[in-house]
């Protein structure tokens, strides 16, 4: 079952830790946004393999709800 990881908030992309094909465990940090001087980490909701990474480090003006990473 595919899990879509959405951005919890609008903001900028600070660090992306995964690339397609990576194996991740539930709770692993996938990427960290930088929003209003605060780091906002996003974690893998389940074990799986990263199918898609739709964000890049340095992206600005991202919207909340955008599907950033897909895990299978």
């Amino acid at each position, binding site marked *: 079952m595919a899990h879509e990881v959405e951005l*919890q*908030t*609008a*903001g*900028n992309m600070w660090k992306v830790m995964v690339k397609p094909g990576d194996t991740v465990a539930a709770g692993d940090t996938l990427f960290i946004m*930088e*929003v*209003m*001087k*605060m780091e*906002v980490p996003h974690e893998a909701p389940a074990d799986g393999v990263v199918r898609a990474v739709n964000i890049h480090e340095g992206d*600005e*003006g991202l919207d*909340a709800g955008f599907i950033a990473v897909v895990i299978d």
Partner: protein
Amino acid sequence: MNKILIANRGEIACRVLRSAHALGARTVAVYSDADRDALHVASAHEAVHIGPAKAAESYLNVEALLAAAASTGATAIHPGYGFLAENAAFAARVIAAGLVWVGPTPEQIDAMGDKERARRSASAAGLPVVPGSPRFALDELEGLEAAAAAVGYPLLVKASAGGGGIGMRLVEGEAQLRKTTQATQSMAARSFGDGTIFLERYIPRARHVEIQVFGFGDGRAIHLFERDCSIQRRYQKVVEETRAPGLPDAVRAQMANAATALAASQHYRGAGTVEFIVDAETFEFFFLEMNTRIQVEHPITECVTGLDLVELQLRLAGGEALAGLTQAQVKLTGHAVECRLYAENPAKMFLPSPGKLVKFQLPSPGDGVRVDTGVREGDTITPYYDPMLAKIICHAPTRAAALAKMTLALAATQVEGIWTNVEFLRRVIAHPAFERGAVFTGFIEAHKADLLA
């Protein structure tokens, strides 16, 4: 000092503009790409674009700021708080460019800006300090465990260049020490360009009480009483008040005198704040740090003293001796509380919430209510800067009356389009423990079931 450039944005830029205009000065605002239509830009006589949205390329861009001052013929720069306000190199550049720097001397900023050096100065001036370690540079952790044992657990790992709770982590025991220290160092290196840290004893039930001081630059200094800023989330202040509830008068006086002595010993110039950590049980107090700038929560002090701190900053920087302003002249009336309205979702770990202010209704100012803001309905809150939307300040003869006024003010506050902490603030003000004055820095964590449910 006939033309003042405000090297800042948001509510503090608007706040400084207000006092500058009251003194009859011309003003220059600066703005990034994200702030073209911001309130502070519209409020100044002139405005200069200084770069892209990212603060590092605009509000922290020394060359762009100095160029803006030169092109507009500004004669002075007020830095507000945050950004370059406590950057000694910037202050020195401003002065070297022949402009008036509205703030302490670069040497004073340097002496207090580095927390470990500040502790030594405070200690030398007779102030009690929390047990702490020498500094450890990035990846040079030889002797860390022994230093930690000497400080005692639990302890905080603190970035030397940090501030406002940023760059500070708790360690309960030796098992976590090295890992947490390394994580703090890499974060500090990234955020501040300096990975140096030190260790400091952690007081489990602590209050954060600070003394507002004002120095005249010639060894004279006064205090404007204390502020209790114990209600914090993520080590950042949410609610502040003066007087500090339940603090014995003798302790207040000792802290105020100690802070004044420190400012006097430094020949401190301008507005500053001496922060103390106070043991909520024993009322023992320890020097934490000195902030060499106007503070976010300065309005509550203005309410109870009737003084305008920004006006005093500007007049002192403009060359006035302010000889009439003696300690005996500073009188305190009533009690004042400030709530910081943030664009964030308390229920989701205070997750920041940028977006459009579809509705933005604040309480009407007057009759003991003051509102400081830098945004208005229809504005978009961008992800680039601080999440604070407004400060709501209430002043009344007693603490109970000030809290009652705040309850009404928060009821009148309505924001739509983004998440805010307004309901959270209402619950803090109404909480029985807060009403009792049982405040400490762990208040929100301890009462989160009531505050966040």
